[in-house]
């Protein structure tokens, strides 16, 4: 009895010892950097204003000439300090080559993302010689340091925004960029090897298998040459399907292909979804194939391209096209796989449908049952049934062929409805209540109209009818609603992207800002009031995407110290605290540096004239917003080193002297002291020393 009790105690003691060892290993685990932690902030209860406060508000409203509607608009959009917007807007930056990120409904500009244009704050393209951004921006060996960013497209899963990636096209140079929405940085730019410029990019297929880039101004594909008189024979349009590798977060150029199209001016595109998944719609104008010659007394392009009452919507069977591409039935132009037009016709990949006069947007309804074409030079939106298109293709209901033998589907056999919305309809998006919204460029208005079919259940009005129009200031181009081109629009807000602002703001010289207007589409039966004017003083945005903020899972700091944003992984050779050094190998010098508040290490870098320098810096900070900069004056070098980030740059020390380098981001109380000296000893001094 005694013995067994003793034995039991022994077992217990061993168990405790084991627990102790466990505790030690637990401690080892706890050495890992702690997960970022957020204190849950208590929601304060809001007491309604007292009568006295309301009286004061009324007095203020009169003094500031604010109507009750103005007060309501302010109350709907005002964000108290620290309150975060429900929606995030990604707007193209036009000729600025950037993307703008705004919060909605406050319309506060949160950030710009450099895409096609070097930008010094973000250190985008200011990393000395062989900067990967500058290399990426080269076209045919030339530096092309700007872009005309046009149409942003958020990545989708099953037709809904997933908040992972943003794609955007560069109209001027026919490029498509990939932005990773974890760190809001451009990761890749692909140059279309076929054409000089484009327009219909970027759009995505419902699972982002492909990023679509439609062309615009026809050229001799692959940077070829032919005189303009050979336009119809030698010039061609195109559409490119860039294969997106989601796991890598990059477009795979080797698995991408294009289709040769007639030399019409292809315009905007959209991908089918739901029942129409696999179809791609692409508008066009100038099916007249006018090439101008105003200087020779010929009609100008603007008139020549607007003669016919009907242009063509291209309808592409992407699934079949993919199969044809994979079967190798392609030509190679400038190293890129292209399905020739004749193959597209014989394989049944390409059809045309007549569409009223020089349209702009073609937009597929959230349920995928209709494609809406905005007439631009025709006062209607024309609605095509995707089911009718499919059966017309199956039953070969053609009304003829075009000049290139592409079958034209009978207009009456594919058209579902037309709604007269006003002058200059450009682009349409949708809400969650069965309404469509179309921008009216000439009318300077936004139209709300009803969808038909199964959408008739969602609203009280007659199907396919104009409901109301809201004037906007002025000349609206694109518009967007919350997730309004996805399979699940959220309604609520509409952004009217107005080209002209004229008298809306202080006159900033002859170059005026654009005007984004926030329109309240939250309820049916309203006049859809404009809530807010937001000037955009950088570039000319074209199109935008509005996503629910909680779908974006962004990083506040890079996940690990030594993170290389180009590879989205830890850089094996990233400098670490303790490993800082300057290494010389012949005339090649490597600087391994760390940055932390408020010093660089090393602080003295002594090299010699003619040295080829590779400089690596890790920002070892783990605190949010502890960003450092790094610049060397006279060498065109400025970096943005975000917490945890690793950056490498190169330069040749060809101008000797004493160069103070310093932190360009106000990081701390000792920011001004965060500097060091790069001393480049002249060759002559070296000779004297010998």
């Amino acid at each position, binding site marked *: 009895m005694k013995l067994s009790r003793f034995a039991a*105690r022994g077992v217990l003691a061993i168990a405790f*010892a084991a*627990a102790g060892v466990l505790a030690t290993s637990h*401690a080892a685990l706890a050495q890992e950097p*702690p997960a970022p932690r957020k204190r849950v902030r208590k929601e304060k209860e809001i007491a309604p204003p007292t009568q006295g406060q309301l009286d004061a508000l009324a007095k203020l409203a009169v003094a500031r000439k604010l109507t009750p509607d103005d007060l309501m608009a302010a109350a709907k959009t005002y964000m108290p300090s620290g309150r975060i917007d429900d929606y995030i807007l990604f707007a193209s930056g036009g000729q600025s080559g950037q993307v703008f990120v705004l919060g909605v409904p406050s319309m506060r500009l949160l950030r710009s993302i450099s895409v096609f244009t070097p930008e010094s704050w973000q250190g985008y393209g200011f990393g000395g010689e062989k900067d990967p951004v500058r290399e990426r921006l080269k076209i045919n060996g030339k530096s092309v340091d700007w872009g005309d960013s046009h149409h942003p497209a958020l990545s989708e899963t099953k037709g809904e925004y997933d908040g992972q990636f943003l794609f955007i096209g560069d109209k001027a140079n026919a490029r498509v960029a990939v932005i990773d929405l974890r760190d809001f940085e451009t990761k890749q730019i692909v140059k279309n090897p076929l054409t000089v410029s484009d327009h219909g990019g970027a759009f995505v297929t419902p699972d982002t298998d492909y990023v679509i880039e439609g062309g615009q101004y026809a050229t001799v594909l692959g940077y070829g040459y032919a005189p303009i008189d050979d336009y119809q024979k030698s010039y061609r349009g195109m559409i490119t399907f860039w294969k997106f590798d989601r796991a890598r977060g990059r477009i795979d150029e080797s698995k991408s292909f294009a289709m040769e199209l007639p030399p019409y001016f292809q315009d905007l595109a959209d991908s089918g979804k739901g029942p129409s998944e696999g179809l791609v719609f692409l508008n066009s104008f100038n099916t007249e194939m006018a090439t101008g010659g105003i200087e020779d007394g010929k009609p100008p392009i603007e008139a020549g391209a607007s003669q016919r009452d009907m242009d063509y919507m291209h309808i592409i069977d992407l699934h079949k096209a993919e199969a044809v591409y994979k079967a190798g039935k392609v030509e190679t132009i400038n190293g890129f796989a292209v399905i020739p037009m004749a193959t597209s016709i014989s394989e049944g990949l390409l059809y045309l449908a007549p569409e009223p006069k020089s349209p702009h947007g073609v937009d597929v309804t959230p349920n995928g049952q209709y494609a809406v074409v905005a007439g631009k030079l025709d006062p209607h939106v024309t609605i095509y049934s995707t089911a009718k298109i499919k059966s017309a293709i199956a039953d070969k209901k053609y009304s003829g062929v075009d000049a290139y033998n592409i079958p034209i589907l009978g207009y009456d056999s594919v058209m579902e409805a037309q709604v007269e919305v006003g002058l200059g309809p450009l682009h349409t998006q949708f809400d969650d209540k069965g309404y469509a919204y179309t921008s009216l460029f000439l009318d300077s208005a936004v139209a709300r109209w009803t969808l038909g079919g199964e959408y008739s259940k969602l609203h009280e009005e007659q199907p396919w009818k104009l409901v109301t129009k809201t004037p906007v200031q002025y000349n609206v181009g694109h518009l967007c609603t919350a997730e309004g081109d996805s399979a699940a629009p959220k309604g609520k807000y509409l952004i009217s992207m107005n080209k002209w602002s004229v008298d809306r703001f202080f006159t900033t010289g002859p170059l005026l800002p654009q005007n984004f207007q926030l329109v309240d589409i939250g309820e049916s039966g309203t006049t859809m009031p404009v809530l807010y004017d937001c000037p955009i003083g950088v570039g000319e945005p074209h199109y935008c995407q509005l996503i629910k903020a909680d779908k974006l899972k962004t990083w506040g700091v890079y996940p690990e110290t030594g993170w290389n944003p180009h590879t989205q992984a830890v850089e094996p050779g990233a400098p670490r605290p303790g490993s800082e050094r300057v290494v010389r190998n012949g005339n090649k010098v490597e600087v391994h540096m760390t940055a932390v*508040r408020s010093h660089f290490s090393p602080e003295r870098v002594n090299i010699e004239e003619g040295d080829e320098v590779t400089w690596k810096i890790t920002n070892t900070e*783990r605190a949010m917003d502890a960003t450092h900069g790094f610049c060397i004056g006279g060498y065109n070098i400025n970096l943005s080193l975000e917490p945890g980030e690793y950056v490498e740059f190169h330069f040749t020390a060809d101008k000797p002297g004493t160069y103070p380098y310093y932190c360009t981001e106000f990081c701390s*109380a000792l920011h001004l002291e965060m500097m060091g000296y790069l001393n480049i000893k002249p060759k002559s001094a070296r000779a004297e020393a010998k």
Partner: protein
Amino acid sequence: MSGILRALFGPRVPQAEFEANRSRYLLPTLLLSAARVLLLLSLFLPYWHMSLEAPQYPDGLSVTAYVNNLTGDVKEINALNHYIGMRPLEDAARFERAASVWMAIAMALLMEGAAFIHSRWAVLLALPAVLFPIGFLVDLWYWLTTFGQNLDPRAPLSSSVKPFIPPVLGEGEVGQFYTVASAGPGWWLAVGCSVLVVVGMFFHRRAYKPLHDRANAIAGTEGA
């Protein structure tokens, strides 16, 4: 059994006596076992916690001490401390952190011994566990004081922030930071262990003192 060993281990409990008064003899053993469980559990829980608030840290900063480890925003706090010339927190109590888990295991084994030894010497074995929570705080105070009082005079903010003693428990202020330090659940478990040991030793004495006295009386009679 020799006299010394008997004096050290104390009298054994006769089987009949044990059967007759099970609870009297089991109680101290159970209490000391429970104390050991609490002590070993406490190793997994924070002993001490300090939170720091400043305008530019809306979510605050914090550091949490386990007996063998420091976690939380240690890196950030070190980054800030270098401005006032305080040494990195990892430099504090290196020996204590390395030894603590083994010390706790040793204390658990000593308590095991205390339950087995039925003489007054058992108190000696139980004493380390009783003093452990107080010892932890005293050691913490020593390090906080050493660190707070020995700021590098060449530090950038040495003219704004003079040497200070961060409070071991309660509120404090340094620079733009407001600090709150408090004992964590691990420390409270250690206190619980300490209390259980004291209570356990009371019952230990109640159980074994009469046996001891009786044995001594018999020995006295025999010797006479």
